[in-house]
C-alpha cells in the first residue's frame, strides 16, 4: 500500500471523494443563498430551517400520504418553495428599503421560530427516513465502498447547479433578473413585473434548499436542528465565493468540501474550523470573495 504524507493512499482517495460529496451539499445550499442575495439583497438566514423543512416534508409525504422519495423530490420543492413565496410577500418584501441588517434579523428570527415549532411537534431525536430501494447498495471502487446514494447526490447536485447557472447566465429570464439587480426601476419601465420576479426568485432559492433537504433526509437524521449545523458552513462558503456570485458559490462549495475532507484525516479536531480560517484569510486578501466583484 502506497503512503501519501503518512496516510495510506486508499484512505486519502476515499476522503477526497467524501469531501466532494459533502461539497455537493455545500454547493447546493450556497447556490440558493447566492441567488437570493444576488437578486433580493437579503441574507436569508432562514435557509437552514427551509432545508430542514424540506427533509421533514419528505418524511411527511411518505408517512402521511404514502408518497415515496421520487415524489418527494418533485413535490417538496414546490410545496416549500410556495411557503417561501408566502413568506416573501407577507414579511420580507417590507424590508427591501431598509438596511441589510433588518433582513438578517427577520430571517434569523424566523429560522429560530420554525425550528422551535418543529422541535415541539416532532421532538429532538429525529425521524427515520430510508434510502429509496432503487439507490440502495454500494459500488466497490477498490479503495472504498461508495454508497450508490451518495453518488446520486453528487450527480443531482451537479445537475442542479449547472441548470441554475445556465438559467441565470444564459436565458432571457436570467438576463431580466440580472438587469433587475442592477437597476430595478429601469427594468420595470420596460414592462417587466419586477416585484413578482423577486418573489419567485425567493421561492426558487427556497426550493433549492428544500431539494437539499430531501436529498439529505436518507443520509442524516431528519431532525429539527439538521439545518443549523450546515448553515454556518454554507454562509462561510458564500462569503468565500463572493456574495451573490453563482459560479463562485458552486466552485467554492465543492472546493471547501474537499479541504474539509482532508482536514478530517490529518487533524479531525479542526475540521469544523478550517473553513473559517480560510474565510478569514480570503476576507483579508480579497474582501469581495474569490469570485466577487468589489
Amino acid at each position, binding site marked *: 500500500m502506497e503512503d501519501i504524507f503518512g496516510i495510506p493512499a486508499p484512505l486519502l482517495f476515499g476522503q477526497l471523494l467524501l469531501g466532494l460529496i459533502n461539497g455537493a451539499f455545500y454547493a447546493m445550499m450556497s447556490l440558493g443563498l447566492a441567488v437570493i442575495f444576488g437578486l433580493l439583497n437579503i441574507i436569508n438566514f432562514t435557509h437552514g430551517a427551509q432545508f430542514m423543512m424540506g427533509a421533514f416534508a419528505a418524511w411527511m409525504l411518505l408517512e402521511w400520504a404514502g408518497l415515496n422519495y421520487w415524489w418527494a423530490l418533485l413535490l417538496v420543492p414546490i410545496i416549500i418553495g410556495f411557503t417561501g413565496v408566502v413568506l416573501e410577500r407577507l414579511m420580507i418584501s417590507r424590508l427591501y428599503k431598509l438596511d441589510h441588517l433588518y433582513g438578517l434579523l427577520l430571517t434569523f428570527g424566523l429560522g429560530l421560530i420554525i425550528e422551535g415549532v418543529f422541535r415541539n411537534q416532532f421532538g429532538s*431525536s429525529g425521524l*427515520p427516513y430510508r434510502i429509496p430501494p432503487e439507490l440502495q447498495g454500494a459500488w466497490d471502487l477498490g479503495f*472504498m465502498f461508495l*454508497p450508490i446514494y451518495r453518488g446520486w447526490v453528487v450527480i443531482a447536485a451537479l445537475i442542479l447547479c449547472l441548470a441554475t447557472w445556465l438559467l441565470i447566465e444564459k436565458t432571457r429570464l436570467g438576463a431580466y433578473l440580472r438587469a433587475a439587480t442592477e437597476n430595478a426601476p429601469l427594468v420595470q419601465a420596460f414592462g417587466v413585473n419586477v416585484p413578482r420576479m423577486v418573489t419567485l426568485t425567493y421561492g426558487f432559492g427556497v426550493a433549492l434548499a428544500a431539494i437539499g433537504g430531501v436529498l439529505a433526509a436518507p443520509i*442524516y*437524521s431528519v*431532525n429539527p436542528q439538521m439545518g443549523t449545523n450546515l448553515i454556518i458552513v454554507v454562509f462561510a462558503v458564500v462569503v468565500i465565493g463572493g456574495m451573490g456570485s453563482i459560479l463562485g458559490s458552486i466552485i467554492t462549495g465543492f472546493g471547501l468540501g474537499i479541504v474539509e475532507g482532508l482536514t478530517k484525516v490529518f487533524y479531525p*479536531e479542526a475540521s*469544523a474550523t478550517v473553513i473559517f480560517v480560510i474565510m478569514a484569510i480570503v476576507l483579508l486578501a480579497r474582501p469581495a470573495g474569490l469570485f466577487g466583484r468589489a
Partner: protein
Amino acid sequence: MPLHRRDVLLAGSGLALAGGRARAQGGALRLGVLTDMSGPYRDLTGPGSFAGARQAAEEFSAATGMAVEVIVGDHQNKPDVGANIARQWFDREGVEAIVDLPNSAVALAVSGIAREKNKVVLGSGVGSTVFTGAQCSPNSIQFTYDTYMLAKGTGDALVKQGADSWFFITADYAFGHALQADTSRFVEAAGGKVLGAARYPFPATTDFSSFLLQAQSSRAKVIGLANAGADLINCIKQAREFGLLRSGVKLACLLMTVVDSIALGLPEAQGLLMTESFYWDLNDRTRAFAERVKGKRQGAVVHASCAGCYGVTLHYLKAVKDLGLERARASGLEVVNRMKAMPTDDDAFGPGRIREDGRKLTPGYLFQVKSPAESRGPFDVHKLVATTPAEEAARPLAEGGCPFVRT
C-alpha cells in the same frame, strides 16, 4: 426570562397553577424538575422526566395524603441558566429538591448551589462519574446511570464476544472524552487493544463518513461511538450506508437509549448493543409502571429518565415522610442521609440502595435491538442479553475519590 419560560411550560403541561400555588402556601412540598425541554436531550429527558416525577408525586400523595407539587424548568443546556433557575427556586419559590439535571455541566453547577443552601439534588439525567467522584456532594444523588456503567456494560460484553480491537469516534468535549477513556480502560483490562480515535468537532459535525472510513482502515473489529443523540444516529446510519457492518465491523454505542432505537427505526438499528438501567418491558413491575405513566407521555415511549425521575422522587418522598416535613425542610443533608440509610424499592427499578457517595446501585442491562420481525409494537424494540449485577455496575467506592467518603 427563565421564569416566564417556565410559567408557559407549566401552563402547557396542564398543571393547575393557581391551585398549586395556593396549596404551596398551605404547606405542600415543592419539587422542581430542571431539565432540557427544548434542546438536543429533550426527547431523552425533558417532558418524560417531568412525567416521571409527577407520577411519583401523585402516587405518594394518594397513598399518604401529603401534598406534593412538581414544577418544571428548562435549563437550555447552559450552566448559567440552570444555576439561575436553581437559585430562584431555592430562594424564592420554596423548592426543596431539584430533580433530573441532564447535562453534567449544568448538574455540577446546580449541585454546588444545593450544597451551599442545604437543599437536595436528585440527579437522574446526569451521566458523568465526576458527580459522585471528585466533585461529589453530600446533598446529591445520582440515581439512573453513569458513564462507568455504560462503558463497563457495553465494553466488557463486546470484548468477551471476541471483539478485542477498538477504534473510537468521539465527540470532542468532556463527556465524549470521559466515555472514551472509561471504555478504553475496560477494553484494555479485558485484554483488548485500542487502535486509535478520531475526535470530531461537537456539535458542528453531521457527516461522519470520513471518520468511519478511518476507523475501517485501522482494521479495528469494533468502532466505539462515544457520542449521543443525533450524532449517534447519524454515525449508525452512515456506518450501514458505507457497508461497514456487512464487512463484520461491530458498532459499540456507548450511550444509546430506547429513544434512539425508535428514532433510527429497527431496519437500521437491529442488532446493536447498548446498556441501560431501565426498559419498560423488563418485568411485570416495569410494565405496570409504564402502563400507569403512559397517560402522561402523550404517545412517547416511557424511557429511563422517566423511570429514574419516578424512582428517585418516590424514594425522596419516602425519606421526607420518614423524617417529618419540618426537619426535611430544615436540612436537605439530613434527607439525603436518610435516603442513603433506607433501602430503595420502586416498580421501575425494584429493590436497591444508595451508596455513601450518592450513587444508587442499580444493575446495568445489556440490550440488543430487535429485528423488525421480532418486534410486536412500536415500542417493542429491545431484548435483554446480559445483566451486570448492581454492585459491579458501579465504580468501586474507593476509586471514585469522593472527598467526604471515608474508605
